[in-house]
């Protein structure tokens, strides 16, 4: 494990592949990209030192094809594989396959990954390590009495969940014991009817929760550090849209307290490399561990901006057996960073996917602005892969400075040819609840943000009305003049085609 890495195959695409390529370059490591048929003109192919074709567009046959990727890594002479996020990043079989083939997997061991991937097992380990988890039963409850005892301990309201349910189905809310009895009977009957047996468990119902996570890094010598928190409460369909650090509700004392718990969590599973401990926070300020994400996260640049650290470079260092060079107390939080995930989705039309060629784009820049993206003029936004096309980040000395910089960077960000979530974020940056830090995972619905966005769009149309009419007049005038010239065969046009 203490072999110096000289070349890395990046088993991913899009902005994260480019991000890893940059880190490789900075470390003097050869970067090796892979690409599907769909991605031959993608930016990661152009920027890597080498690029290998690995299969058709469909992920199963390319970016998820473990055998092909390991073969390619061996043929190209790669010392290590960086999985990015998504695809094979949390696949313990892949990590193991790398291991068996003498390739360093830049991420946790397959053993740690297996444990963090099993929520029930992981929860049990955490309880043993005194990491607070969401109160409730450890597994399936035997009968109504056990359910009532657990509910008493956890405190009402509680949720009654069917082990066979999923996606919100089979979940029942109980505000007191009487209601719990009613619901328990009905749920048991329902479950027996559908699946032949009742398998229910009890969990405390958390309302108005925030999603707050701690970035962690742990080396092969057992040193663990937390790199502070990220607030990721603004979500849609359980997917994060906006992340920031610090969280408006985490003060230095809480940061240290929960940070220590997060460190305990990764120590408990003998974790390796970068990872994230995710917590729910209720309005009373209680934190409940929910899971460890055993990979580099999409939102890692938020942490990079407030710590000054380069997480991908750290990952590579840890993977080649280096010891972390900083102690917990060496780390200082500097200012505030916000990230908006620019997705190729239409926020005015139920976030429908939007794909195709981007004929032109303009990336924002300026003080405090960072963009991680695979976009370039002429690039293809493919329907085969996920909708994240860019991550826009703004750093400021405080929340307000970063928020205002973000707002104006969103104004500057121009992406032609596809719809994106930019209009949504513009609305959020100006929303008084966001400004007050009044966040929760139901933020979008709670404050009717989509309605506000539509109103803002109408306001914008009002402001642009004159210019829009002017454009129509110019367009028809241009056509008229062009036709007149064609008809009269005049050699020269006063309305020359100007290149601006």
């Amino acid at each position: 494990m203490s072999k110096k890495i000289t070349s890395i195959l990046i088993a991913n695409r899009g902005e994260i592949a480019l991000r890893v390529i940059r880190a490789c370059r900075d470390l003097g490591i050869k970067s090796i990209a892979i690409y599907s048929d769909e991605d031959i003109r993608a930016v990661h192919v152009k920027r890597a030192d080498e690029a290998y074709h690995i299969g058709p567009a469909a992920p199963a046959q390319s970016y998820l094809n473990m055998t092909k990727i390991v073969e390619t890594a061996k043929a190209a002479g790669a010392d290590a594989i960086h999985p990015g996020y998504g695809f094979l990043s949390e696949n313990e079989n892949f990590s193991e396959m790398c291991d068996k083939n003498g390739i360093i997997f830049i991420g946790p061991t397959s053993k740690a990954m297996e444990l963090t991937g099993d929520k029930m097992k992981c929860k049990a380990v955490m309880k043993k390590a005194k990491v607070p988890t969401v109160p409730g039963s450890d597994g399936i409850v035997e009968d109504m009495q056990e359910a009532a005892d657990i509910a008493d301990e956890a405190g009402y309201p509680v949720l009654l969940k069917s082990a066979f349910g999923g996606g919100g189905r089979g979940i029942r809310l109980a505000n007191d014991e009487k209601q719990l009895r009613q619901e328990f009977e009905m749920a048991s009957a329902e479950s027996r009817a559908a699946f032949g047996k009742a398998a229910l468990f009890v969990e405390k119902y958390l309302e108005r929760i925030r999603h707050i996570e701690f970035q962690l890094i742990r080396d092969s010598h057992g040193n663990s550090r937390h790199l502070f928190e990220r607030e990721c409460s603004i979500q849609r369909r359980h997917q994060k849209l906006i992340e920031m650090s610090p969280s408006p509700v985490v003060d230095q004392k809480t940061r240290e307290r929960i940070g220590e718990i997060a460190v305990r969590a990764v120590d408990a599973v003998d974790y390796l490399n970068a990872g994230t401990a995710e917590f729910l926070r209720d309005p009373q300020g209680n934190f409940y561990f929910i899971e460890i994400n055993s990979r580099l996260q999409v939102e890692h640049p938020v942490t990079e901006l407030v710590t000054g650290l380069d997480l991908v470079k750290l990952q590579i260092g840890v993977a080649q057996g280096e010891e972390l060079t900083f102690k917990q107390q060496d780390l200082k939080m500097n200012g505030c960073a916000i990230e908006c995930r620019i997705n190729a989705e239409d926020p005015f039309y139920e976030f429908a996917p939007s794909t195709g060629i981007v004929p032109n784009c303009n990336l924002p820049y300026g003080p405090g602005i960072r963009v991680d993206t695979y976009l370039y003029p002429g690039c293809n936004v493919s329907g085969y892969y996920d909708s994240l096309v860019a991550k826009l980040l703004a750093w400021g000395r405080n929340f307000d400075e970063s928020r205002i910089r973000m707002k104006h960077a969103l104004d500057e960000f121009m992406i032609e040819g596809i719809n994106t979530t930019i209009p949504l974020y513009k609305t959020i940056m100006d929303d008084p609840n966001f400004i007050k830090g009044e966040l929760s995972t139901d933020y979008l619905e709670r404050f009717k943000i989509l309605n506000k966005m539509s109103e803002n769009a109408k306001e914008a149309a009002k402001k642009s009305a004159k210019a829009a009419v002017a454009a129509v007049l110019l367009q028809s005038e241009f056509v008229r003049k062009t036709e007149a010239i064609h008809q009269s065969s005049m050699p020269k046009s006063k309305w020359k085609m100007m290149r601006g």
Partner: protein
Amino acid sequence: MQFKVGDLAEMLEGEVLRTTDNNSVVVKIGGKQHTLQLLKSGTDEFEFLLDNSFHHAKILQVGTAEVKMMIDGQPLVVKKHSKLTEVLEKASAIGGVGGGDRNLTSQIPGRVVNIAAKPGTEVKKGDVIVVLESMKMQVAVKAHKDGNLKEIKVKQGASVARNDVLAVIE
């Protein structure tokens, strides 16, 4: 001519008064005269200063009655208003003419992952007919009206483009 901009209630009167040699155009919009200073002018892209402020227009589609554009990064439709368009709008408000109304089209490009309804059956507006997948998301395409599902035009696994006809409802 009168123009209706986006969803705005008021109409805007607009006309070109004259064009000059040094790439400027004098127009009258909403009763006020303005000089447009042209920075860029082409078939589908215009850049100009209006009241000393810069604007960028990308013309997406020009119809006889309306122009679709991106103005300063925002999509906007400007309708050329006339007696004719009024008549047309009333007609379409009453309930559509021609076959366009029978077709259920795809609003997004994607792959067909599920056919959720049977041809020949009665469907209600809002019933899921086809499920598409794009960008790892599943998007349900729902019936746009009550009626008989005459035909499903796509097969499971097929790729569809935006505006492709997925089914016919009569």
